[in-house]
């Protein structure tokens, strides 16, 4: 049996996953940095990662029931993400690869989200909506790469929800993040307050929506529940509209929802409707694999390694701005069996 160990550390999560070459996930251990106040401070998050790295790696081996010497290849998320966080994960990966004398694979974080989503939901060729605190992307495979059909022109939808929640004075804790709190409040909302609905072609803009929602908070004329409800309805309708456009355009057989915001039941419901209308199967990635996780890096590491895409340690610099559509994904065509 061959195994790949993957390290994810693009933002607030430090996570290690172990995948077999056959696509079995043996371990997926996470440890998240939770700021006391405000957003992610890159340096503090990186310090958190370096403190927990050894413990998380050891736990992953324990969970998987294998020994370090059983590892064939080490993968790490090479980008995109926060520099200090990426470098911490990369350092751990390089050390492991050098010590174990195994090859190193640099994985694109966004590609990994799609690949693990395909693995666990058995989707073959989906339109993917990837929504998190750092990303808002509608992508689908076309001629060798995942092409970006739509994306945010400014901030990510998760970021929009987080900043709004913080402005409303809400506090998140382990196990109950801002997105979940807003979702809970939104359920109790009844009145739709008009907010800017900003769809530009297949791209989106959330900054104006965020400003307007914060303005409503300040005015104090509406219940917080109603603002949460209106914010969610507006933001998610925008996301669903552009996903439907990509689906109508590409005529793909599946819709894959992933990323941290994928846990939101209202968003799931909306996407399910459009998937059904276009005779596509709706696949939502389970939370464990939808949040930033090491398993996705390990599995994508397997795919890349099988295509010889390893990198020498001295050329393994992190790429903070590495776009999804810059990455060749030769394994996708192969999975189609050359039919396309």
């Amino acid at each position, binding site marked *: 049996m061959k195994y790949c160990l993957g390290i994810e550390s693009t933002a607030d999560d430090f996570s290690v996953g172990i995948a077999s070459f056959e696509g079995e996930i043996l371990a997926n251990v996470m440890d998240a940095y939770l700021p006391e106040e405000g957003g992610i401070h890159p340096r503090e998050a990186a310090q958190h990662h370096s403190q927990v790295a050894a413990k998380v790696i050891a736990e992953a081996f324990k969970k998987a029931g294998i020994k370090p010497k059983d590892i064939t290849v080490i993968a790490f998320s090479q*980008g*995109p993400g926060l520099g200090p966080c990426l470098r911490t994960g990369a350092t751990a990966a390089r050390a492991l690869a050098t010590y174990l004398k195994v090859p190193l694979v640099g994985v694109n974080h966004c590609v990994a989200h799609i690949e693990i989503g395909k693995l666990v939901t058995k989707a073959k060729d989906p339109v993917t909506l990837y929504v998190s605190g*750092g*990303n*808002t992307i509608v992508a689908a495979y*076309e*001629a060798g790469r995942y*092409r*970006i*059909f739509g*994306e*945010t*022109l*400014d901030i*990510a939808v998760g970021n929009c929800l987080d900043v709004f929640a913080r402005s409303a004075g809400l506090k998140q804790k382990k196990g109950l993040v801002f997105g979940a709190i807003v979702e809970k409040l939104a359920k109790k909302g009844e009145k*739709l307050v*008009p907010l800017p*609905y900003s*769809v*530009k*072609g*297949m*791209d989106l803009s959330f900054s104006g929506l965020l400003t307007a929602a914060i303005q409503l908070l300040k005015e104090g004329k509406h219940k917080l529940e109603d603002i949460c409800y209106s914010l969610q*309805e*507006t933001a998610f*309708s925008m996301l*669903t*509209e*552009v996903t*439907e*456009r990509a*689906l*109508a*355009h590409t005529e793909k057989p599946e819709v894959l929802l992933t990323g941290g915001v994928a846990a939101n039941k209202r968003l799931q*419901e*909306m*996407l399910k*409707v*459009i998937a059904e*209308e*276009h005779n596509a199967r709706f696949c939502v990635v389970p939370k464990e694999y939808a949040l930033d996780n090491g398993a996705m890096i390990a599995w994508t590491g397997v795919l890349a390694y099988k295509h010889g895409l390893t990198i020498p340690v001295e050329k393994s610099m992190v790429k*903070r*701005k*590495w*776009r999804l559509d810059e990455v060749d994904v030769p394994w996708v065509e192969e999975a189609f069996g050359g039919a396309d």
Partner: protein
Amino acid sequence: MLIKKGAEANLYLEDWHGRKVIVKKRIPKKYRVPNLDEQIRLYRTIHEPQLMHEAKKAGVPTPTIYMVNLAEKSIIMEHINGKQVKQLLNQIPNKERARICKRIGELIGRLHQRGIIHGDLTTSNMILTSNNKIFFVDFGLGEFSNELEAKGVDLHLMKRALQSTHYRFAEEAFKAILDGYAKVVGNKNMESVLEKIREIELRGRYIAERGKEK
């Protein structure tokens, strides 16, 4: 007869008093709450014909509007016989492609000069007819604006559409479009829109150049 089920509306090819027409009907979207859904569909059904009419006055061919039904959120318009530029661009020689792209640029320039923002500039929303006219359709996401920002986003979307559907020759095609655009609005105006596009691109996530500016 339903000919296209889009994300935004359904298109039907119908016979209307002896004419071949397109009926564009914005059907309710079940995923949106009814209130928001009604607002969006009504707004777009009102604005789209207005924009198309203004575009025609600016010298940009668009289908003639025959009737608007706000209760049903439907628009009846002329059916344009021709080829979708999206398909066409991939089939023709480089020189011909450059000519069409330049023409597209001129038409976008005319729109922008009159403060019309198309809102969804893609090659699937352009039709080339047999008498060599390029029709612009689908103004559903458009708006009236004279702001540089709006014009910049409009052209940025065109660029992105080229990159996703015509990645083999996206760069040349966009260059030709800018040439045509400059011919109408002037070099100086084109340069300032181009500058704006750069700024918009740098606002996006994970853009290599953004790191360099810090």
